[in-house]
């Protein structure tokens, strides 16, 4: 005899409002349905009512965790549509901020995952280490969230010797933390019991579900826009594409542990190679000729795409934001089917859902 089990919209395992209706047979989930829309703010529509430069502040507030990537994807789209060149030093600063943000996002995720499994010691340990990267973002931008580093045609904040030496010192701490985490996530018996062979998705199925980012790379899909569709100065950086074939919660989580180490590698190269010069193209963006462009970046959760249509005025005619969670979360409905009820929060949580991103 089956019954319905509501999870959320306010639940200790969720950071934000989301509602999951589970259809259960005993302890087994036979069907799952996710309801979103609790934080819908119509950002796409509001963007068409403001000028291009004012939209920058708006789109940055889509998400509190990957806000830099939102502004970057938007800048890429506008710069492409307006034919605006970006100075090389600005590109390096963008990569630097993006990778710091990726470390911060992945560490937040790893802590939250530990918390969802009831492993609160690891949660506290991960999040205390995350403070180091938050401090660096604050040092660089003046803010802990919504960094406001990007502007159309460049960046607003420069990096000097003092900042780069402090970042280098913080990277030592972070590398140490990431190595300890990698040790814990491969050896701890309770972590392995909760994550191995849970929420399995094959490579073919993952492709048809369209998943992106670590969720795809944990299922053996070799796709990371930094490598497969290089933008900015990523082609000049030496780093590895992390792909694991397991297809379960553990693989998709461990991809992120390894990516923290790759990001540290990238930041060191940025600090070594950063050229001198201006950080912003002084040309203002006022009206943009009719154009239709897509700006894509690899956000911490996967591909983030901004589709911008301009019509010759100083405002976008249409701005469509496709966030990674919007395509990854429906996939977790498939992952939950056939799993245990106790694993449901872990399965929803392991794709690192960002409800604010998704509801826009």
């Amino acid at each position: 005899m089956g019954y319905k089990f509501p999870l959320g919209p306010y639940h200790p395992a969720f950071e934000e409002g989301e509602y999951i209706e589970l259809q259960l047979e005993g302890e087994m989930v036979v069907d799952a349905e996710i309801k979103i829309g609790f934080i819908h703010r119509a950002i796409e529509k509001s963007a068409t009512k403001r000028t291009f430069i004012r939209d920058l502040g708006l789109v940055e507030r889509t998400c509190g965790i990957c806000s830099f990537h939102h502004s970057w994807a938007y800048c890429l789209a506008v710069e492409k549509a307006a034919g605006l060149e970006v100075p090389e030093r600005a590109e390096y600063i963008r990569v630097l901020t993006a990778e710091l943000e990726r470390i911060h996002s992945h560490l937040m995720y790893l802590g939250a995952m530990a918390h969802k499994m009831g492993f609160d010691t690891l949660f506290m340990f991960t999040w205390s280490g995350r403070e180091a990267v938050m401090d660096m973002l604050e040092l660089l931008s003046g803010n802990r969230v919504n960094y406001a580093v990007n502007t159309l045609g460049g960046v607003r904040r420069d990096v000097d010797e003092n900042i780069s030496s402090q970042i280098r010192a913080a990277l030592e701490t972070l590398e140490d933390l990431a190595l300890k985490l990698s040790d814990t996530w491969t050896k701890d018996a309770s972590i392995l019991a909760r994550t191995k062979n849970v929420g399995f998705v094959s490579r073919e199925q993952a492709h048809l579900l369209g998943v992106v980012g670590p969720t795809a790379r944990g299922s053996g899909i070799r796709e990371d826009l930094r490598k497969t569709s290089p933008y900015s100065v990523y082609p000049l950086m030496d780093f590895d594409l992390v792909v694991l074939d397991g297809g379960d919660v553990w693989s998709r989580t461990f991809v992120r542990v390894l990516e923290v180490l790759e990001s540290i590698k990238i930041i060191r190269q940025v600090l070594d190679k950063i050229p001198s010069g201006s950080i912003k193209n002084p040309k203002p963006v006022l009206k943009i000729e009719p154009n239709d462009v897509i700006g894509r970046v690899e956000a911490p959760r996967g591909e983030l795409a901004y589709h911008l249509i301009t019509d010759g005025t100083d405002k976008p005619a249409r701005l469509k934001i496709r966030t990674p969670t919007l395509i990854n979360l429906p996939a977790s409905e498939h992952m939950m089917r056939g799993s245990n009820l106790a694993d449901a929060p872990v399965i929803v949580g392991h794709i690192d859902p960002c409800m604010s991103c998704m509801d826009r």
Partner: protein
Amino acid sequence: MLPGIEQAKLQRYGLNGEGEREIVDVDVLKLFEFITDFKDVFRFISITAYPEGDSLFMQYHFSYGSWIASLRLLVPEDKVVPSITPLLPAADWAEREIMDLFDIKFSNHPRPKRLIIPDDAKRGIYLDF
């Protein structure tokens, strides 16, 4: 030229696999043929619905490496378009969102429920103001 993709098969849809993005106009039949042909190799990104003049358009975006194909479809007067979700599960939420925001109906959608606006709100809020 895209590695591993038959050029003649692509050209049937007016695409060359060159540059970083190509936009082509399609009708419903061609859209479905394209998805059947390429769903195993191209990754579905999303669908953008947008008004242009007095008509509504939809662009179906597919990605392959650094290349994007955008298939543009004119939404008919009655605003009913067949759903691609039975073929391609990735399109599920993208179609439901368009139903909410632009009041376009996707016939044959397996679960045509509200996604991001409440059940008692009017559909098509993005067309209003």
